[in-house]
């Protein structure tokens, strides 16, 4: 630990501290409140709100890795969706022979199989992420056009391999028995799995914030997002940091992929490419390099999708693009941009 005297006791009052920017944080409750008159029934609104928030935290899980990769490494990884697909299919593979545990009413067995699936998704996505970084990303550092082309190529290769291994047809991923069905708050039905997704997503968000703000590696990542050259000139090897961040991003996507697969329940190998669009919308809305911005953007996307899907399905088709457009008109760099590119 860093041995520091106690200058903290010295007030920072005489320096105008940068005010906490609450406005983006207020957007989530604001959108939820604005939706009430359009939804009508309070119980339906509550159901949609919980569903939207749950969808949002899962989108955060699959987006946060790319947010770091794009923010720190300045790498346009259009292949991020491959790790999502991998996460979902690896989970499927783990779940298949353990169907007895999945269908058991024993919550402990349900959670055990889910934990095993998540661990496997994280490990496999991380390993493939390491290969992706070494083989595809490293040779094209600093060249956005090549990054886009080669990562899209890599994505296609991984997706086709998944089709070859698991097949191209739609598959079903069963939610463990104890997590099926709904809880009722008044007339509002709240799906159990969505509550679990909220807990897991909030845990991932808290862990990311903790690592980024309270640890030395987190300090390096935040500094590297701002000025990579300066960090190197202080003696830190950003290349190692880049690899670690890329692998961590792939792991998060793998974990989110399984959660996303369980959320959708039926999916094809295109699950990753479909999510790719959402991911880019989220990191653009959130602002490059900002974990909090990424979370707020993901929640906004989740809520907007659910509200418009219920109230006006035709608008739902482009509601996220509209949301991005409105946010960028208000804040062209996104909600909380740490880096400007």
């Amino acid at each position, binding site marked *: *630990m*860093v*041995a*520091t*005297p106690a*200058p*903290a006791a*010295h*007030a*920072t009052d*005489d*320096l*105008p*501290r*940068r005010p906490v920017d609450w406005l983006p944080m207020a957007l989530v409750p604001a959108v939820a409140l604005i939706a009430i008159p359009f939804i009508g029934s309070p119980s339906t609104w509550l159901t949609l709100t919980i569903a939207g928030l749950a969808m949002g935290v899962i989108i955060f899980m699959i987006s946060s890795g790319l947010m770091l990769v794009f923010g720190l490494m300045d790498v346009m990884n259009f292949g991020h969706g491959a790790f999502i697909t991998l996460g979902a299919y690896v989970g499927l593979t783990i779940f298949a022979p353990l169907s007895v545990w999945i269908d058991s009413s024993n919550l402990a067995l349900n959670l055990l199989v889910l934990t095993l699936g998540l661990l496997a998704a994280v490990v496999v996505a991380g390993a493939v992420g390491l290969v992706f970084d070494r083989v595809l990303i490293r040779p094209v550092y600093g060249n956005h056009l090549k990054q886009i082309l080669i990562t899209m190529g890599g994505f296609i290769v991984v997706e086709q391999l998944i089709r070859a291994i698991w097949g191209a047809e739609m598959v079903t991923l069963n939610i463990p028995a104890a997590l099926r069905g709904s809880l009722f708050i008044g007339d509002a039905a709240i799906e159990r799995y969505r509550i679990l997704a909220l807990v897991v997503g909030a845990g991932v968000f808290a862990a990311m914030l903790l690592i980024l703000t309270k640890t*030395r590696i987190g*300090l*390096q990542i*935040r*500094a590297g*997002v*701002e*000025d990579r*050259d*300066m*960090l*190197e*000139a*202080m*003696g*830190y*090897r*950003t290349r190692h940091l880049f690899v670690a961040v890329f692998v961590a991003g792939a792991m998060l996507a793998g974990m989110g992929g399984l959660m996303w697969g369980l959320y959708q329940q039926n999916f094809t190998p295109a699950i990753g490419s479909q999510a790719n669009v959402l991911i880019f919308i989220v990191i653009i809305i959130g602002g490059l390099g900002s974990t909090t911005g990424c979370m707020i953007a993901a929640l906004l996307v989740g809520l907007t999708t659910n509200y418009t899907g219920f109230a006006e399905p035709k608008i739902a088709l482009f509601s996220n693009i509209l949301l991005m457009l409105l946010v960028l008109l208000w804040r062209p760099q996104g909600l909380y941009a*740490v880096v400007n590119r």
Partner: protein
Amino acid sequence: MSEILLSLKNVETRIGPYHILHGVDLDVPKGSATMLLGRNGAGKTTTVRTIMNLWRASAGTIHFDGRDITNLETPDVARLGIGYVPETMGIFADLTIAENMRLAAFSGKIDTQRLERIFTMFPAIKRFWLARAGTLSGGQKQMLSIARAIVEPRRLLIIDEPTKGLAPAIVGNMVPIFRDLKQSGVTILMIEQNFAFANAIGDHVAVMDDGKVVHAGTMAELADNEAIQRRLLGLSMASHQ
């Protein structure tokens, strides 16, 4: 002449299609302050960035304390005990001052006595310890960037235009700080446009023009010779007093 700590021989640097340095020869004696002067675009910043290997030398050699560091990666150059303060100051605006300082202490531990000395030199660092670095004024940011560079013992400090954009009163306060640093045994290589400031600190001087060192000698020699000043820099030091 005293022992040479840093030596550049015939260093050339190309950035993309541009040939910036055309064979720089520069010696930095140990325990002294060497000022790198020259007009805008002469290649001063490119020279120090090449020393740090932030831009790679395309030809020539760079030796630090007798060791060839031409092809060392930037982190390895820094780990030799070279502190670098870039022209842009390079502070991490989104981090607090405390976090900036912690990060600069590569060993992971800030020596308490050293930190107290830094607080004495730069009281603002102590006062605003928990504030985000981005909220500091220009002068305070410069103080932070220097404080960060000396948070651990350095053998060589490379500083790119520390007075740039600062009020004269702040510049005046920085003179004793650098003299103090020099007395503590740190070797300094400083790019400076403010001749009076350079004269107040420098022992040696190298003047660059068109990507080369066109004059090297003692600071006193240059300060006493208005004709050389006019020829090399287009200005006389007298006009900066």
